[in-house]
C-alpha cells in the first residue's frame, strides 16, 4: 500500500508539469494573438506599475490638506486642474487632476486609489476562489448529501442580488474596508463553487481518475492532484472577470459610504463624496469614474481573451 502510493506521488508532478507547461504555452501564444486582450493587459500593467510606485509618483500625500502641506498652499477647495504644460500660470502650484473637496491633491489620491482597487479585486477574488473551489469540489466529488447541502446553500446566496447581500453583510459587520472585502468575497463564492462543481462532475468520470483510483489513490489525492488541476481553466476565466465585478462592487459600497473610510483614497468613495458637484467641479467626478472604468475594462478584456484562448473549441478556428 505504501509502496504503491509513493509511486503515484513520484509520477504525478512530472506528468502534470509536462502536460500543463504545454497547455499554458499554447494559451499564452493564443492570448498574445488577441489584440483586445493585449490592450487590456497593457492597461493593467500600467495600473499595476502605478499602484506599486504610487508613493514615488504622487506629488503629495493623498490624505493631507494643501493648507497643511509643506509649504502650505493657499488654494480653494475643488479648484480645477492646473497643468503648467497646458498654460496654467507657472506661479501656481501644479495639480494635474485638480483639488478635491478637502483641498487635497486629486492626482495623488487617484494614484493611491489604484493600489486599493487592485488590492480589493485580487484579495476578494482570491478569497472567493479558495472557498468556492473547496466547496464546489467537495460537492461535485462526493455528491449526495454533501452536494445537496452545499449547493442549496449556494443557491440561497445566489437568490439575493449580490450588491444587496453585500450591503446587508456590511450593515451587520459595520462599515469599513476589510468588512467590505469580506462581504464582496462572500457574495462571489457561489459563482466559483458552481463552476468548480460542474468541472469536477465532468472530470471525475474520466479514465485517468479511474486509473488513479485503481492504483489505490485516496480521495484527497484524486481530488487535489488529479481533478483540480484539470478543472482549473474555467475558474481562471471566471476569476479574471470576477475581479472586474469585485472592483465595481467595492466602488459601489464605498460610494454608499460602506466601504473604505475617510481619509483613505478610494475611487468609489471619491466619486460618492463629490457627486453633488458634478456640474460645478466635474473633474472630481470624471477622473475617479474614468479610473474605475479603465480598470474594469482591462480585466474584462483580459478575461474575454483568456476565455477564448483557453477554449479548445476555438483553438482550431484561430
Amino acid at each position: 500500500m505504501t509502496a504503491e502510493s509513493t509511486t503515484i506521488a513520484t509520477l504525478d508532478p512530472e506528468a502534470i508539469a509536462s502536460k500543463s507547461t504545454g497547455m499554458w504555452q499554447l494559451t499564452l501564444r493564443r492570448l498574445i494573438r488577441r489584440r483586445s486582450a493585449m490592450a487590456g493587459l497593457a492597461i493593467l500593467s500600467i495600473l499595476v506599475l502605478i499602484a506599486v510606485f504610487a508613493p514615488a509618483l504622487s506629488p503629495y500625500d493623498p490624505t493631507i490638506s494643501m493648507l497643511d502641506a509643506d509649504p502650505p498652499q493657499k488654494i480653494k477647495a475643488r479648484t480645477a486642474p492646473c497643468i503648467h504644460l497646458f498654460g496654467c500660470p507657472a506661479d501656481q502650484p501644479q495639480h494635474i487632476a485638480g483639488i478635491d473637496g478637502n483641498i487635497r491633491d486629486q492626482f495623488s489620491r487617484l494614484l493611491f486609489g489604484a493600489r486599493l482597487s487592485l488590492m480589493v479585486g485580487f484579495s476578494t477574488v482570491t478569497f472567493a476562489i479558495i472557498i468556492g473551489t473547496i466547496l464546489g469540489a467537495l460537492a461535485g466529488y462526493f455528491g449526495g448529501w454533501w452536494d445537496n447541502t452545499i449547493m442549496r446553500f449556494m443557491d440561497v446566496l445566489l437568490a439575493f442580488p449580490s450588491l444587496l447581500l453585500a450591503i446587508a453583510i456590511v450593515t451587520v459587520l459595520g462599515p469599513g474596508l476589510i468588512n467590505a472585502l469580506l462581504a464582496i468575497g462572500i457574495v462571489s463564492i457561489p459563482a466559483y463553487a458552481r463552476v468548480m462543481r460542474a468541472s469536477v462532475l465532468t472530470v471525475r468520470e474520466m479514465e485517468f481518475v479511474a486509473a488513479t483510483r485503481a492504483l489505490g489513490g485516496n480521495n484527497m489525492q484524486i481530488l487535489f492532484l488529479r481533478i483540480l488541476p484539470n478543472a482549473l481553466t474555467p475558474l481562471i476565466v471566471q476569476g479574471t472577470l470576477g475581479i472586474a465585478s469585485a472592483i465595481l462592487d467595492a466602488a459601489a459600497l464605498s460610494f454608499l459610504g460602506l466601504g473604505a473610510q475617510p481619509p483613505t483614497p478610494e475611487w468609489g468613495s471619491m466619486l460618492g463624496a463629490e457627486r453633488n458637484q458634478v456640474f460645478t467641479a466635474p473633474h472630481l467626478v470624471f477622473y475617479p469614474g474614468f479610473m474605475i472604468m479603465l480598470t474594469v475594462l482591462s480585466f474584462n478584456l483580459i478575461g474575454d481573451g483568456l476565455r477564448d484562448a483557453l477554449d479548445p473549441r476555438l483553438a482550431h478556428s484561430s
Partner: protein
Amino acid sequence: MKRNLFSLLSLLVLASLVLAACGSAEATTAPEMTEAATEAATEAATEAPAEATPAPIPDVSLATFDGSTLSVPAEECNGDYIGLIQSVAAVDASTVVFTLCRPDPAFLSKVAFSPFAIYPSEWLEATAGDTTRTSEGLEAPVGTGPYMVSEWARGESVTFVANPDYWGEQPAASTLVMRWSSESAARLLELQSGTVDGIDNLGPEDFAVVEADSSLQVVNRPALNTFYIGMTNTFAPFDNQQVRQAIAMGIDRQRIVDTFYPAGSEVASHFTPCAIPNACVGDAWYDFDVDAAKAKLAEAGFPDGFATKLYYRDVVRGYLPQVSNVAQDIQAQLKANLNIDAEIVVMESGAFIEASSAGSLDGMYLLGWGADYPHITNFLDYHFGASNPQFGVQSPTYTDLLIQGAQIADPAEAESIYVEANNAIKEYVPMIPVAHGGSGTAYRADVTNPQASPLTNEQFAFSAPGDRDTFVWMQNAEPISMFCADESDGESLRACDQVMENLYGYEVNGTATEPILAESCDPNEDLTVWTCTLRQGVKFHDGSDFDATDVVATFNMGLNIESPTHVGNSNIWSYYDYLWGLMKKPGS
C-alpha cells in the same frame, strides 16, 4: 430518507430566512421612530420613557378637561409636575387665558411655533383613533391657513389649493406644489430647467452658479443655528477638562468656515448665534493656538496625543452643509495639530441622534441645532440643562445660572447672568461651537417676495411666481406626516405652515412674533398669566367657526395624555413635551 433530509433542510433554511427578516424589520422600525423625532424629540424620549419602553410604573395623568377648561391642580406646580402650563381656559368665545406654573418670557415665541397650530375641536374628535389618526388626519389637516391640501401623491408631491374663505389676503398663487429631492445638484437642475419656482438649501458650490444666472436669484438665510463638536465627558480622556480645552484651542475653526461654508456663515464666538439677545455676552471662544493647545494636552498627560473616534451622520443641514468634508478636515486637523488619531464613524441618522443625546458616544461627534423659536433658552437651556446627558455630566456652575436666567423677561436684566453662564460654558467646554452656517434658497428671477426664513418656515402665500398661477417649491425631503402637532421634522413643519395657523406667528423672513389668530396676547405683571383675545370671523377649511374652545381643545389634544384626541403619528409629542411639558407626573 435522502428526500426527507432535504426537505427538513429546506424548511430550516426557510425558517432562518423568516427569522432574519423579522429580526431586521424590528431593528429598522426603532430608528425610524427616532428619525421622526429630531434633536428636540430625544429629550421627550428620555423624559417620558413610559411611552417608548414598557416601564414598570406608568405616568399619572394630572389633566382635567371639561370642554372649556384644561387644567392641572394648582398645587402640582410645586410638586412632581414639571410642565409649564397650569391651565388653558376659554373665558368666553373670543378669550383664552393661559395660566403658567412659572413665568415664561418666551411664551409668545413658543405659541407661534408650528406644532402648536390650532385645530377645530369637532375635527379633532372626529379623527381621534384608537392608535393613530386616520389618513385624513395625517395627510390633510384642517386648519385656517391660506392653503388647503388638495392631494398628497406619496413619494411624488403635495398639492395645495387656495382657501377661498381665508380671513386674510388671498395667496398670490392659486395652487402650491411641494416636491423634494435630497440631492442639491438635482434641485438646482430642476430650477434651471424651470420646472420648479424655488428650491431649498442651495449647495455651497452652487451659490456662484445661481448668482451668475440672470434668470435666477439667491436669498441668503440668516445663520440662526449652531454647528458644534460634542464630547461626552463620562468617557476618558474627555473626562479631563484640560483635554477638552486643548482640543478647543487646537482646531482652526476659521479655516473650516472659510473652506466649507457658503457666504453668510460665521465662526461661532458663542454657542448661541449673536442675532439672539444675550447670545454673545461674555468672553468669545478660544483663539486657534497650536502651541498653547499642545502644551495644554501635554499638561493633561497626553503629550503624544491619543486615539479616539469622530462620529457623524451623513445628513445635510443648514448648520453643516458639507458633512463628510468637514469631518475629514477636523480629522486632519486633530492629527496635524494635536497628533490625535480620530477614526471616522458614519452612523445612521436616527441611531446617531439616539446615541449622542443619550451620551453614549465614546468619542467626539458632529451635531448642530437650528432655532425652534428665537430665544436664548431654546439654545442654552436645551443643551446645557442639568438633565441633558448628551455631554456627560453638566457643570452646576452654568446649569443653575440658566434656570435663573430663563425666568427673567427683560434681556437687559438677564444680561449679567448670561455673561456668567457663557463664560462658565467656555471654561468647562462641554462642546466646541464651530460655526453658524448660512444657507440659501434660490428662486426664478420673476418670483416676487422670495423668502429664506431664519426659522425655515417660509410662507409661500406671500410669494408670487411671476405671471404663473402655480408655485412649485422643491425641498430636501418629503414631509413625514402633516399632523404637525406630533411632528418635529422641519420638512414636515414647513408643509403644515401653509395650511395651519397659530395664535401668533413669525413675521415673513424674520423671527419677531406677530398676532395671527389672536388679536393680542397680554401677560400679567409676573408673566404667569397670558390673556389672548381671538380674531373674529375666522373659518376653518371644513366651514366650522374658530373660537376659544378650539384653542383649549388643541392644547388638550397635545398635553392631556388621557384624552382620546391625544393620538398622532409617532405619539412622541416631542415639542408639546419639550416646550410645555405633558400634563403628567411619574407614577409611584
